[in-house]
């Protein structure tokens, strides 16, 4: 089993980890090398499951004792019974999902709560690029060109909140953070978050 220390984990994952109740059942979509799952297992006795598309990463997780399924989480989530997990986590991937509304509905079905984090497209640096250069913005978080980006969904903190309100998702936790891409340090943004935060993290419960 790998034993990652809190400070080695990506900053948004540290925030997410702090929201998880000990002993709960967690599904991590796009779990990578399993940093979050391993941390939750060691520090919060969480029974975790990961889904990861990449063979090498999935095999790494399994060989370190984690329960991980290699596959496309858009399909894999459909096989779980209702409320199978206490938390379903989708970190820094929502902007790449083809059918986000359908996926989030599935997450609300299989999890008591779900947590999403995504890069905030209304950060002032992105706004300036569009305004001053007149070109599709690029950033550390979103480094691609319009023609090769996997980030097909343009999401801002405000957009997400509006979406949650419209479909009846109750936001039970939300944190806006300023952190560098993949960095393990960062800070919480309290004011003007839609302008100043590089990432947003939300925990959702479906209203009955």
């Amino acid at each position, binding site marked *: *089993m790998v034993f990652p220390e809190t400070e080695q984990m990506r900053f948004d994952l540290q925030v997410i980890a702090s929201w998880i109740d000990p002993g709960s059942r967690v599904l991590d979509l796009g779990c990578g090398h399993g940093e979050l799952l391993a941390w939750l297992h060691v520090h919060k006795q969480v029974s975790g*499951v990961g889904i990861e598309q990449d*063979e090498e990463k*999935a*095999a790494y*997780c*399994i*060989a*370190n*004792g*984690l*329960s*991980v*399924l*290699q*596959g496309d989480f858009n399909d894999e989530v459909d*096989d*779980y*019974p209702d409320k*199978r997990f206490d938390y379903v986590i989708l970190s820094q991937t929502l902007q790449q999902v083809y059918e986000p509304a359908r996926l989030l509905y599935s997450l609300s079905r299989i999890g008591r709560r779900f947590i999403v984090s995504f890069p905030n497209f209304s950060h002032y640096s992105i706004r300036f690029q569009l305004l001053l250069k007149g070109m599709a913005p690029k950033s550390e978080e979103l480094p691609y060109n319009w023609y090769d980006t996997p980030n097909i969904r343009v999401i801002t903190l405000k957009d997400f909140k509006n979406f949650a309100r419209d479909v009846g998702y109750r936001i039970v936790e939300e944190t806006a953070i300023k952190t560098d891409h993949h960095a393990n340090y960062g800070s919480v943004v309290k004011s003007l978050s839609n302008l100043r935060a590089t990432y947003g993290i939300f925990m959702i419960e479906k209203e009955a």
Partner: protein
Amino acid sequence: MVNNSDSYLEVGSAGVVEKQFFTYAEPPDQMILESGASLGPITIAYETWGKLSAKRDNAVLVAHAFSGDSHAAGFYPDDPEDAKPGWWDSMIGPGKGFDTDKYFVICANILGGCMGTTGPSSINPETGAPFGLDFPMMTVGDIIESQKALLDHLGISSLHTVVGGSVGGMQVLEWCVRYPDLVRSAIPIATTMRHSALAIAFNEVARQAIMVDPKWNRGNYYDSEKPDLGLSVARMIGHVTYLSDEAMRRKFGRKLQNKANFSYGFDVDFMVESYLRYQGSKFVKRFDANSVLYITKAADYFDLVNREPPAKSIQDIRGMKIKFLVISYTSDWLYPTYQAKELIQALKRADLDVSFCEIEADCGHDAFLIPDKRLGTLIGGFLDGVPRN
């Protein structure tokens, strides 16, 4: 911890091993098979590697594929210089996927086989002659019951894991539904919950190849010439299903065998023809034609999805504490990944702990038998994470 060494390349490191025999179900206490027929005495040929711990909690059962045997690793004492090691030698031994410094590894020849365990070529005690088609039809479930009898004999009441590829994978799944309390983890590899029409079709062609050989003589050939032609054709078709389009293109393409031009006849022209004929002729030296009939039929009957109660299916082991590791190969067209996914779906719905890895390999269904560092690392690490109690 994860084993990153190249121990999988150390041929024969499991050491010298001897085939052992265990006989049970002596009349009148014969074994009742799933079909209702009774069979006994039954002899099981098996081999073991490593040491059983004092707590008897480190046993690993390896289930072999259709044409395999108990000789999974190492060499026999009387092996000639050029002998090949056991069929999973890259996986069993010190520091390998099934680390014999940690685990007590057992592999038994399956019921109906011809490598020491009772099968159609064994002597029928009632007649004093080989069974032939008088051997009762056995199932994958019957194979598991015979392995259970062996474990009872060895004093083993729980398995750290049960593992196997292909028909061996079916045995793994059958173990889980029959004895879910005994199995702490399970590793079904390149396998399926039930044969597709394609898999049954290939098996049927193999069986027909044997049965149309006049020397087969309705299974009664043990004191005369054997149906070698039919058996070798059966092996040829089988072998095609174990490879893949990619592997055959890479290995043979349209290359000719020892010639520059076509012969414009029906002798061997293409290299792939020569290879298949060689595989066929090699097989008849070690395998019994009737065993092919019985084992392929048992594999065709195997169905973990549609079962008449009281037979157990995956839904009946809902929530059990078995850790599953399902493995498939990208180029396996006999049991393609979609069949592994069906298994995973069933396991998820039954609230079972399942991991899955699809290994990228171009060598087809037989990929699990080819030495590959990835498989040993994956399985070795997975087994470390399985609780001992």
